[in-house]
């Protein structure tokens, strides 16, 4: 099988020596044997060339990736000192001169995100004051890229494990008990439709006709509130509560506040975009953004690179009998991504879908995976809830083996335990987020050193940096048209 590139001709790669040493940070790929010409170039170590007017600075979120990118570019990382004062303020000192240079600052939105974001902004600002010609922020994982609708998903699965006081505060704010993860299983939380059809079961005010022994009459006020509640656009079960213990007694005449008010979670997308631009960035390079339309928030050019070429390479090289495998998207949102990969590799495709037609929503498989190897594709693996539950569905439906191929493996909280307990055979993630600790943790948790495998994205990022710096086309990295034998 040969890859051809839609660009006129593959431009000559960096002056390649005949050595075919894999880049040191990668242990996932065997040495290619000549099939993938241009992609080969991405995985070989070049002879040193000089890059004029180019400086690559690394933040403290992912120094290994910065080193890998610089090694691909055959330069050494720029000298910058990143420390914290004793009062926790970030201190950035750019030791070398960046006057008139193109500066690329590599910082991933992982670890302690706020600290790394501040560090990035201060570095951009420092370079701007130091008269850098052009400043590009390279963010392999873009922070705050997911913009949730609420602190909890509709099924009650928490996006985070809130403390008890936070849960209590949220419950007070909306006047209804919050489906705290330890108290009520997610699958049992009632769907909004059900609550509106049978409000008497969920709202004490409606105790009237339906229940025996609950003599509370439905007063005129309650009836009005029921009508109001019915016509509310219900996004979560919690907002249908017409009356709460809170009433409106607190804060005197504040009729606007209280349980009727729909809670909303702040979406900081435009904020992050504005901050990066205000700090002085001229260009953003990121990879596999969760919402590609995020690029529209920026006034400056954004290159949202794809990790698909490396995913194809991994599937073709590393997964035995991949031609008979099935690409599965673990949720409906990722269908577009998964179908793109399935089409490119001419493989079958299936989808896990949350069926909300019935009282409790259930995960169903759309497609057939019986006795097949399954490759789940997703962009972010944070708590691994989605992947684990999808894997259970797949094995229930007869999948032989389940792989998960994910771009950003954040693996926060008890994600590794969840992964180990799930029927997922191997999780393959990229190194947009540092993975050394995750691989170790998974190895100790299950005894297999290859439970988590890593594919290296430094070649794509370095190639993008090089092409942008030289003013060449970056579309090489997007337009890949496979011809399948």
């Amino acid at each position, binding site marked *: 099988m040969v890859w051809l590139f839609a660009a006129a001709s593959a431009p000559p790669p960096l002056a390649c020596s005949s050595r075919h040493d894999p880049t040191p940070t990668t242990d996932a790929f065997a040495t290619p044997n000549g099939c993938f010409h241009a992609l080969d170039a991405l995985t070989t170590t070049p002879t040193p060339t000089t890059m004029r007017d180019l400086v690559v600075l690394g933040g403290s979120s992912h120094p290994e990736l910065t080193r890998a990118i610089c090694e691909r570019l055959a330069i050494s990382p720029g000298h910058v000192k990143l420390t914290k*004062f*004793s*009062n*926790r*303020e970030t*201190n*950035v*000192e*750019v*030791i070398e001169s*960046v006057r008139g240079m193109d500066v690329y600052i590599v910082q991933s939105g*992982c670890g*302690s*995100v*706020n*600290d790394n*974001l*501040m560090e990035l902004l201060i570095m951009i*600002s*420092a*370079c*701007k*004051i*130091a008269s850098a010609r052009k400043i590009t922020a390279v963010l392999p994982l873009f922070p*705050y890229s997911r913009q949730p609708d*609420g*602190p909890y998903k509709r099924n009650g699965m928490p*996006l*985070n*494990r*809130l*403390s008890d006081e*936070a849960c209590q*505060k*949220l419950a*007070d*704010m*909306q006047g209804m008990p919050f489906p705290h993860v330890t108290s009520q299983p997610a699958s049992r939380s009632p769907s909004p439709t059900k609550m509106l059809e049978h409000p008497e079961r969920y709202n004490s005010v409606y105790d009237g006709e339906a229940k025996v022994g609950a003599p509370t009459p439905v007063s005129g006020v309650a009836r009005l509130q029921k009508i109001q509640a019915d016509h509310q656009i219900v996004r979560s079960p919690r907002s249908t509560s017409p009356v709460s213990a809170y009433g409106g007694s*607190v*804060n*005197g005449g*504040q009729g606007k*506040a209280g349980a009727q*008010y729909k*809670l*909303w*979670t*702040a*979406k*900081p997308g*435009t*904020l992050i975009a*504005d*901050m990066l631009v*205000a*700090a002085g960035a001229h260009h953003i390079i990121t990879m596999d953004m969760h919402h590609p339309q995020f690029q529209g928030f920026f006034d400056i050019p954004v290159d949202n690179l794809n990790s698909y070429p490396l995913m194809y390479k991994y599937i073709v090289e590393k997964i035995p009998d991949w031609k008979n495998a099935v690409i599965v998207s673990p949720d409906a949102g990722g269908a577009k991504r998964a179908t793109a990969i399935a089409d490119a590799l001419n493989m079958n495709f299936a989808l896990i879908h949350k069926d909300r037609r019935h009282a409790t929503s259930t995960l169903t498989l759309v497609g057939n995976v019986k006795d097949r190897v399954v490759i789940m594709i997703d962009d972010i693996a*944070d*708590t691994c809830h989605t992947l684990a539950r999808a894997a259970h569905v797949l094995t229930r439906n007869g999948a032989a083996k389940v792989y998960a191929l994910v771009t950003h493996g954040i693996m*926060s*909280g008890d994600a590794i335990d969840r992964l180990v307990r799930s029927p997922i055979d191997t999780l393959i993630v990229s190194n947009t987020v540092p993975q050394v600790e995750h691989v170790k943790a998974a190895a100790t948790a299950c005894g297999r050193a290859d439970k988590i495998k890593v594919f290296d994205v430094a070649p794509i990022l370095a190639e993008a940096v090089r092409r942008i710096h030289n003013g060449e086309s970056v579309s090489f990295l997007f337009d890949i048209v496979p011809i399948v034998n």
Partner: protein
Amino acid sequence: MSTNSIKIFSGNAHPDLAYLIARRLGLDLGKVVVSKYSNQETSVTIGESVRDEDVFLVQSGCGEINDNLMELLIMINACKTASARRITAVMPCFPYARQDKKDNSQGRAAARLSTMRVSLWVRVGHDHVVAVQLGLAPHPGVFNIPVDNLYAEPSVLKYIRDHVPNWATDSVIVSPDAGGAKRATSIADRLGIDFAIIHKERKKANEVSRMVLVGDVKGKAAILVDDMADTCGTLCLAAKTLVDHGASAVYAIVTHGILSGKALQAINDSPLTQVVVTNTIPHDEKKVKCPKLATIDISATLAEAIRRTHNGESVSYLFTHAPE
């Protein structure tokens, strides 16, 4: 006066101060939950309408500064998209203001970056953000929006009059460095007492080498006045110098008591009689470890500033008077 259109929200930096401010104004704090997702991103959920309201966000630049700063920025952005009429950031301790003081020889970009840094976040909130903070501020020209820099001086004067015995006859105001001379002379003039200054030679950041006293403190209570106390190296060395020159007691009154690292230990071991800080930065647990710590409550000043800003009255009264 329409007090019910003031909304005060607090982040996680110093909720106690926000509660005191709100109580002073006769209000409840606004309903907001600020927490973190499992991947360490900040989540802000607002529980009441802020449409066309005068919103005040109380967040001090202390503790985990970057996290608190992000919380504040996201809250500002959230209120802006929710059509608040005006958004004011009340920041008792302003972060990243100290880096201005670094000398230019090393890390040339770092010296001025804090000024630019500060102006960048302010631009994010657009021109409805007013920063109100005490004591230490970058130059107001850095911001393109109104800044009200309140002073802790009236509260400091009040404390000295109420708590230092024989302050009128037997005390001296001392500035622990040349930079604070203006601050110290202002207080000394208001109280009508003498003034002295300590000149220090500093070799490295957070490390003090030699101290020279200019003025006389013999037989008097020396009152050190400074804007920030972080590791307290300066303060303890100054106290020792003053005692060596014959001071009977040494008080230290500091606006922002960051007190990080070994500060509490240093204070306990030093000849300082008492260290007084304002509650711009939470320090209740620190008082347990260090009995020499005392507090000046500035929630009254901040609450008054908020009230006057909301009503369109003059705030300059607060530059010279401390509310009771």
